[in-house]
């Protein structure tokens, strides 16, 4: 029994090593080959389905309704942000998020109108992955999820929690629930349409550009936009070290 277990453990660790060992692998992205194929799949889905649908939505649906839809979904995620702000022991952000939800649900008619923003109550979006990050759970490897795109092991694993508590989960009619989910996706994608192919145009390898941007972005979110410097982000290789000795820090 014991030997069997150790065999299984050995096989499992070999499997992991086998997955992880591309010679020039980025330490943050050991699953790069798999991630790249999922990213290609996502791009195909986006080009052929999501982007055309979102473009149609943007062009056909009146602006006022688009804004209303966006506000309702934002209101739903503000509810979850309230809980996550509380879990991160941020009293002011918790109060503001809660205030937003109450004001928008009552005076904004189920969140259709974003009254709270006029009252200078700012959004403090927090999800469960951020809460875990706040309490020190590391990212783990970068992970590209089918349909959902860039993520990490930690964020991917906490996504089911975000979904499970979403109020839209409590719509009992399943086709309606699915329609609401699709509407949320399309509305989100339509917001991103105006940035066009920025990621593609700004990079020579869209995959690694997206990955590095996502990892920096999440890190910044976890530190509420104010992360400590990473070790070498300040260096200046253009300076000639002999002529220009580094100032003592």
């Amino acid at each position, binding site marked *: 029994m014991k030997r069997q277990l150790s065999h299984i453990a050995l096989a499992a660790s070999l499997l992991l090593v086998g997955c992880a060992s591309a010679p020039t692998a980025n330490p943050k992205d050991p699953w790069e080959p798999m991630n790249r194929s999922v990213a290609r799949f996502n791009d195909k889905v986006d080009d052929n389905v999501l982007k055309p649908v979102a473009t149609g939505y943007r062009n056909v649906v009146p602006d006022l309704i688009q804004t209303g839809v966006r506000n309702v979904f934002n209101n739903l995620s503000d509810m979850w942000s309230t809980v996550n702000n509380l879990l991160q022991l941020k009293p002011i952000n918790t109060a503001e998020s809660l205030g937003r939800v109450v004001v928008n649900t009552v005076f904004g008619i189920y969140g259709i109108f974003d009254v709270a923003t006029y009252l200078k109550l700012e959004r403090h979006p927090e999800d469960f992955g951020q809460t875990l990050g706040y309490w020190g759970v590391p990212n783990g490897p970068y992970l590209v999820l089918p349909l959902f795109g860039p993520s990490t092991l930690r964020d991917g694993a906490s996504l089911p929690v975000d979904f499970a508590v979403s109020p839209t989960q409590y719509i009992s009619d399943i086709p309606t629930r699915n329609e609401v989910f699709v509407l949320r996706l399309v509305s989100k994608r339509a917001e991103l349409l105006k940035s066009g192919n920025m990621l593609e145009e700004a*990079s020579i390898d869209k995959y*690694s*550009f997206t990955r*590095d941007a996502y990892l920096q972005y999440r890190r*910044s979110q976890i530190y509420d936009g104010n992360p400590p410097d990473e070790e070498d982000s*300040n*260096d200046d290789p*253009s300076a000639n070290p002999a002529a220009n000795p580094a100032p003592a820090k």
Partner: protein
Amino acid sequence: MQYLSFTPNRWLRLMVGAMLILGVLTSTFAADDTPEAFIKRLSGDVIDAIKTDKSLAAGDINKIIVLVDQKVMPSVNFLRMTASAVGPSWRQATPEQQKRLQEEFKTLLVRTYSGALSQFNDQTILIKPVRAAPDDKEVVVRTEVRGKGDPIQLDYRVEKAADAPAGWRIYNLNVMGVWLVDNYRSQFAQEINAKGVDGLIASLADRNKSNAAKPQGK
């Protein structure tokens, strides 16, 4: 005796020296701004230009590129940005390669930045107070672009530069928590590992060519 006879001469030299130092100091002070004031004026200039010129506001990318070249680039340390994005391989590159890298990277960034500017319409820029000692040579200036929807974080790393128009130069840019220069590092390294510095230059040139070929101003 010799010492005495040279006295007026020495004094004159001292005077000229002192005047020179004073001159340099005053001109430095004249050009010296706080980093906030520098960023505020720079972004104000660009936004005013976009608001007053209709073709700029309509998103004419070529005109925006000219604007960025004239107004923004003199206040950017592009050598440092490129070197930092290229990383350790920068010092191995020949001066010619370094020059080409700077040119291609600049074309790429100016175009991307101009594309972002073309989306600009009724937003305002809020400059947050800088937390730094007065004699700091490198400072982070935090700003927020406010308009419809959630505010967008836009931060600058600036360095003191006596020869720059406002006494400061930008050497990195942060959009929504993503430092731009840092974000190029791993793909540049990846390209250099696979195809060398010339390979990276070629890839950048290709990207710029295909960007330029695309229809603009939608």
